[in-house]
């Protein structure tokens, strides 16, 4: 299978052949025989490989996409993949690729979507993605990336960021609000720290945010979150957030899903929240709310395990008079900055 003996439609497809054969050699297990037909010079007929006319020269076919979602392939990404300079999308959800993302991915100047989700990638946040000029969709969820999330990620012109179910730590960078994403999912990491006040700057673009189970502390940035007028999903459940629920949530007019359950919120649920016009689900169970329970609106709600008098399924009076149930003054609480948290 000498590349020099094969005939190719054009030089780009010849390079693609070299890249794909290197990748095939870096595959240890392919239970569905996905790459069985990865032989010969017609790379455009390979399973999971998608060709299209080049945007710069429509007379030339090039490899524009790799889509191996759900192939269950075990292996790694060899540096030769950087020869696929025409790639617009790289989708490998639910495989068993391990190791890291090669630096040669920097040559993929047209890469628009990078989906590495549900694999076995490890190590620091793959900094190479920060150098991809066309990237809009970044999905790294369900891997074992660790350490800090670089603040530069939020200075990039991305549309979607999925980082959930990794091992990221050391807080959410303070420049979060610079990001123009429509969706951000950060759930199930061990970030710690507070929700940066800069989140208020995302009002023009942000539609959905999930910060569930991230070991977050402090109070919700009250005046800032009121600016999130386009937000439909706001989920901060399973953290250690404190203080009362700010009445400014009532200004998030597009909100459909609101989940603040499993935190340490206190006080009364503001009536402005109950009146949100598009609300479909409101979950506030497992906190220390003492009242303001909205009379059932058009939405479903779960407010069990609080301290609301006269409502069924509440915490015991011992729990409700404990230290954890005591209101705190959010003006007096200082959020640890993410830089000095790394040692704790």
């Amino acid at each position, binding site marked *: 299978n000498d590349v020099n003996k094969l005939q190719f439609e054009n030089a780009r497809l010849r390079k693609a052949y070299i890249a794909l054969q290197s990748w095939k050699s870096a595959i240890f297990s392919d239970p569905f025989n996905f790459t069985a037909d990865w032989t010969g010079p017609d790379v455009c007929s390979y399973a*999971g490989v*998608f060709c*299209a006319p080049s*945007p710069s020269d429509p007379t030339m076919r090039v490899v*524009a*996409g790799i*889509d191996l*979602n*759900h192939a269950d392939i075990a292996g790694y990404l060899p540096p030769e993949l950087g020869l696929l300079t025409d*790639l*617009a*999308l790289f*989708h490998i*959800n*639910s495989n068993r690729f391990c190791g890291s993302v090669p630096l040669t991915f920097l040559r993929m100047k*047209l890469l*628009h*979507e990078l*989906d590495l*989700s*549900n694999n076995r990638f490890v190590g620091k946040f793959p900094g190479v993605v920060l150098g991809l000029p066309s990237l*809009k*969709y970044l*999905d790294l*969820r*369900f891997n074992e990336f660790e350490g800090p999330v670089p603040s530069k990620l939020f200075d990039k012109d991305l*549309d*979607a960021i*999925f980082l*959930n*179910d990794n091992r990221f730590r050391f807080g959410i960078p303070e420049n979060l609000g610079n990001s123009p994403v*429509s*969706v*951000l*999912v950060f*759930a*199930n990491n061990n970030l710690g720290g507070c929700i940066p006040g800069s989140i208020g700057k995302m009002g023009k*673009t942000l*539609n*959905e*945010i*999930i910060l*569930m189970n991230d070991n977050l502390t402090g109070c919700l940035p009250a005046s800032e979150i009121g600016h999130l007028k386009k937000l*439909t*999903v706001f*989920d901060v459940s399973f953290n250690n957030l404190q203080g009362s629920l700010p009445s400014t949530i009532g200004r998030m007019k597009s909100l459909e*899903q609101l989940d603040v359950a499993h935190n340490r919120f206190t006080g009364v649920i503001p009536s402005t929240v109950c009146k949100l016009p598009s609300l*479909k689900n409101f979950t506030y169970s497992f906190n220390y709310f003492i009242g303001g329970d909205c009379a059932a609106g058009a939405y479903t709600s779960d407010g069990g395990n609080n301290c609301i008098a006269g409502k069924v399924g509440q915490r015991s009076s011992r729990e409700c008079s404990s230290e954890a149930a005591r209101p705190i003054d959010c003006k007096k609480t200082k959020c640890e900055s993410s830089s000095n948290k790394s040692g704790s």
Partner: protein
Amino acid sequence: LGSEASRRVLAQQRYISYDALRANNVPCSKRGQSYYNCNHRGRANPYQRGCSYITHCARYTRR
């Protein structure tokens, strides 16, 4: 509600953020197609995109 209308109502209740909490989920089940062009018929073209905000396009295009 007609069946088409109720289907659309159901589709609107999906959120790409909550879908992301399930490891196997992807926004578009049509192999080779951009996640931003999932409702496109015919051959997949990775360079073709129908929408700019995944929260808008994904809500109407999945499956």
